[in-house]
């Protein structure tokens, strides 16, 4: 029974090929637009997510407060208020996973005949975990290097390229501000940060070595910045409150005194970028969906014409024993076939278009099976929804009037 109906629907579609194709075109354009927009939108989301992951997840930075020297306010991070001990205390807080004290500056680096100005980060071994940074080559320094302020360094990809060229840097000695440092390892490439800085143009050395041999410190153990990693996105608010009260307490600030430090939630900034792309892709999807709707209306229009044209055929079928249900099924099946066929072609075009966009512009595209399944389900639903009224109109015809129809 169903096989016969499928055959009939196929025949009916083939009877007027151009019209069937034009009807399908609405669905084709709609589905391919949805698939293409979703692929581009999800691609954008994916690349933002990658940048966030590269930065490290659930991150805070705690900056020392500003200092005023000779009437000039020097900006955040210059006061000597933040210490390594503050960092150790924060590690104990609930909701905090790890803390890395950071002191940084710029320096000229020399290897052999080459030299290069880059940023130097003095920190503890936890820093690599907090930033979700791994080594490509060699190994990291340890806590004992911190204690004895050994002159060892981990260097970023860009520094390797500029100082070493093809030479293997591990084990070689470079000079940072004239002080010799042995290269222990090479950092994995991290690419650009969200604001476009080259994260690979950097050298990481033990905190103590940086303070004693490179930049000096106003007081022993004072740092410019603490990088703090929260346990989870949910624990971020709790960790922030805990840090604020702990630091106020440790810095002996009275009620009414201003904080002598700044806490920045890096994840929040990144998440707002993610939110923007999510909104964008939703918007694109919504606009594309409108064309699906228009395609559906096109199907309904043609089905109504088809029912009127085939009134006599409906009468014949009823006269030889077709039930209302049979007529209904026949026209509904036809509508669904048109929309599903349109959907299939649209899927191919959409996916092809997305790959083409990727090829031509290099923009990331993600074709998820989820998006494909959704587009398919929507197409079938559109077929049923917009096919229903014409099919019911056909099924409700009076057989004798349908037979008399010229």
């Amino acid at each position: 029974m169903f096989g016969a109906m499928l055959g009939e629907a196929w025949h009916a579609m083939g009877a007027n090929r151009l019209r069937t194709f034009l009807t399908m075109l609405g669905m084709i354009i709609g589905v391919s637009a949805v698939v293409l927009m979703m692929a581009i939108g999800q691609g954008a989301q994916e690349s933002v997510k990658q940048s966030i992951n590269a930065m490290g997840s659930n991150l805070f930075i705690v900056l020392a407060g500003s200092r005023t020297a000779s009437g000039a306010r020097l900006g955040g991070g210059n006061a000597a208020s933040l210490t390594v001990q503050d960092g150790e205390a924060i590690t104990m807080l609930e909701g905090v996973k790890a803390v890395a004290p950071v002191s940084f500056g710029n320096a000229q680096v020399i290897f052999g005949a080459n030299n290069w100005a880059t940023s130097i980060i003095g920190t503890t071994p936890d820093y690599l975990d907090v930033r979700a940074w791994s080594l490509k080559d060699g190994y990291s320094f340890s806590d004992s290097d911190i204690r004895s302020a050994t002159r060892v360094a981990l260097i970023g990809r860009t520094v390797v390229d500029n100082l070493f060229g093809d030479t293997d840097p591990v084990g070689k000695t470079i000079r940072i501000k004239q002080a010799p440092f042995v290269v222990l390892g090479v950092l994995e490439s991290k690419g650009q940060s969200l604001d476009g800085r080259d994260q690979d143009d950097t050298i990481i050395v033990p905190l103590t070595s940086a303070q004693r041999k490179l930049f000096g410190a106003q007081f022993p153990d004072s740092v410019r910045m603490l990088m703090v990693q929260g346990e989870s996105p949910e624990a971020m608010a709790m960790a922030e409150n805990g840090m604020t009260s702990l630091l106020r307490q440790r810095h002996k600030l009275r009620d009414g005194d201003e904080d002598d430090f700044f806490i920045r939630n890096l994840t929040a900034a990144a998440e707002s970028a993610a939110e923007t792309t999510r909104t964008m892709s939703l918007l694109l999807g919504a606009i594309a969906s409108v064309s699906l709707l228009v395609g559906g209306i096109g199907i309904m229009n043609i089905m109504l014409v088809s029912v009127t044209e085939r009134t006599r055929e409906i009468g014949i079928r009823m006269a030889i024993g077709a039930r209302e249900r049979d007529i209904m099924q026949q026209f509904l099946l036809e509508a669904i076939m048109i929309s599903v066929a349109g959907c299939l072609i649209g899927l191919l075009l959409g996916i092809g278009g997305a790959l083409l966009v990727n090829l031509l512009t290099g923009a990331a595209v993600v074709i998820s099976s989820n998006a494909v399944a959704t587009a398919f389900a929507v197409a079938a639903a559109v077929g049923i929804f917009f096919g229903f009224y014409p099919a019911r109109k056909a099924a409700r015809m009076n057989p004798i009037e349908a037979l008399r129809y010229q």
Partner: protein
Amino acid sequence: MSSPIIRVTDLCKDYETALGPFPVLKNVNVSISAGEYVAIMGPSGSGKSTFMNILGCLDKPTSGEYVLDCHPVAELDSNQLAQIRNQTIGFVFQGFNLLTRSNLLDNIALPLVYAGTDKKVRHERARVLLEKVGLGKYPASMPNQISGGQQQRIAIARALINRPRLILADEPTGNLDSKTSEDIMRLFAELNEEGITIIIVTHEADIASHARRQVRFLDGRIVHDAPATEAPSRAEAETA
């Protein structure tokens, strides 16, 4: 003869018009037994086609009772009516009413689709009937490739496929020449020999002469009902 396959009592049918209800059938009473071969005659507008549509469960009477095969038709819902049109009745139309996009075999087999028969059986039975109506060589031809007489044969084969007990033919030879008409009438006679009840609407006396009973309509009433040999002359009918 056995119990009546059709019994119609006080049947009336009004058409709604702008000027109010217009009566087409007025208190029609008739009873037809299984195995009969009846010709329904009358000038156009006499109500014979309307009567035929009601017999075929395509139209509903305004009042009166129609009992088909012991079932009062008024009590059946649309699905049951569809089943009767499918299983009990075979319809043959003046205009053949074949599906133009389907080939001959599929046209004949179409009622079996609605009876839920599977494809293999459908084709077997359609092939047998195609042979029977003398077109066994052209199963894949389309209706527009054959003559009117051949199309009507296909329509008859379609009417027969569910082995109905009753064939209703509305002016089956109206669009055919006299030679072809004779062939078709011979086919009906054969079917009647096999025990199928046949009711045929016509306004041609020589076509009606094949039937064994003639019922004549005039202005919505039956004015004559007698075995074919006692058919009245045209003048007699008009004065009746």
